């Protein structure tokens, strides 16, 4: 016996499937590592004391971004046509992390929100908000998760800027995060994970507000340029 009468072809396709999942898992792990490296570089922005220091870190991160793009391509190549959502649970978290890194870099460079064309260019992946693309793409929830993540990073940055005597950046961060918050308020969030994270934006907004208060009450905003740059 041991001959499969009933399930032979199914078993074969399940084995192919298992193998595919293992390949994807390996590729995702590589992507994860690259993301962690870029995150480590960007986390030095918190200790940067001048704008040019910030610029340097951002450039270093940007250089490494090519690796992220390459790693994402490797994942993307593995995902079969029209089966994107069969496997996306395996990389969605890492993809959101990559989007966050892109959004953070774009913010540090331009102080603007990462646009859809920008994310497509940086990650080398199509954005398909409605998820109608048959191939590997970035869906609406991945994009939103990526954006949520920058608010907490920026609230931390606002705090550290003050420590380093940079009193103007927090004011700009405050405006940006507030605007982002207004945007999120327009959404009807069902998805529990996203709603929960959205609730946390409020705390970030509040925290940044407090930094702005501290700066303004001490009249620090004006001094800076004179003192530091």
């Amino acid at each position: 016996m041991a001959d499969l009468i009933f399930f032979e072809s199914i078993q074969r396709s399940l084995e192919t499937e298992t193998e595919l999942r293992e390949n994807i898992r390996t590729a995702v792990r590589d992507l994860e590592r690259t993301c962690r490296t870029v995150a480590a570089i960007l986390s030095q922005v918190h200790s940067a004391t001048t704008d040019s220091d910030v610029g340097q870190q951002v450039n270093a991160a940007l250089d490494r971004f090519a690796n992220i793009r390459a790693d994402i391509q490797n994942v993307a190549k593995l995902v079969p046509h029209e089966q994107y959502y069969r496997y996306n649970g395996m990389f969605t978290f890492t993809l959101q992390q990559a989007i966050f890194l892109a959004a953070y870099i774009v913010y540090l460079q331009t102080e603007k929100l990462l646009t859809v064309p920008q994310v497509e260019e940086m990650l080398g992946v199509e954005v398909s908000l409605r998820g109608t693309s048959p191939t590997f793409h970035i869906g609406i929830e991945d994009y939103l998760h990526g954006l949520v993540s920058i608010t907490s990073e920026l609230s931390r940055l606002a705090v550290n800027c003050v420590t380093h005597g940079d009193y103007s950046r927090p004011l700009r961060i405050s405006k940006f995060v507030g605007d982002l918050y207004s945007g999120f308020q327009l959404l009807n969030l069902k998805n529990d994970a996203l709603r929960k994270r959205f609730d946390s934006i409020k705390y970030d907004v509040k925290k940044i507000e407090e930094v702005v208060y501290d700066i303004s009450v001490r009249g620090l905003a004006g001094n800076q340029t004179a003192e530091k740059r």
Partner: protein
Amino acid sequence: GMGGGGRTVDAPPEIIDTFQELSGVLDELHDRRERIIKLSRDITICSKRMIFLLHRIAGINRSKILAEARDKQKEIIRLFDQVAAELKGNDFYRHHRSIGPGCEEFIEAASFLVYVERGELATKDELQKLLVNEEGKQILEIADEDYILGLADLTGELMRYCINSVVRGEHQVAEDICHFLRTMKNEYEIIDYPPAKKKMSTMRSSLWKVENACYAYKVRGAERPSQYFVDELQRGESY
């Protein structure tokens, strides 16, 4: 086979007739339950959207948002009207497990609207009066249980609303919510209804978050300059 194979034919008509009737009744009851579950899901979804809408209130859009929320509320009431025929008399409690979640969510949304509008707790009577159809007829009665459980969930939304208010700088609203929630939680603790007790820990943690938000404002706010000064300062920025 012996007996078995032909048995359906043998069976005396009184048994076959009885069970044929029972079969029809059972199918009817199941179909009805299925319809109620589906409408309850719709009511829940619509109520959640109404709540989310109310959280969007910020300054000058207030009256517009309130109007939209009242429209959503009317939509929910229409859904209740659709399901009402199935919930007459006895049938209300019979299908309570199916419709209950929808009722609770509606109470949460409607009482949240009341708080946002007037800063008060919606009474059961008041919410019940909302549930009338276009001919002015009462659609259904609100059960004490649903009212009590819907209000427990309201506290979570009030907590979110409070944090939003602190963010918007509306500290009086935050303090009012803190006072309101503290009183409400205090009374709620005295209610002796097991499912309500299960919601207490969430309610306590909502109050704790609100108290911390007010604390944070007080601690930072003590050093805070006049609004005028802050506005001036912001105007100075380049954007």
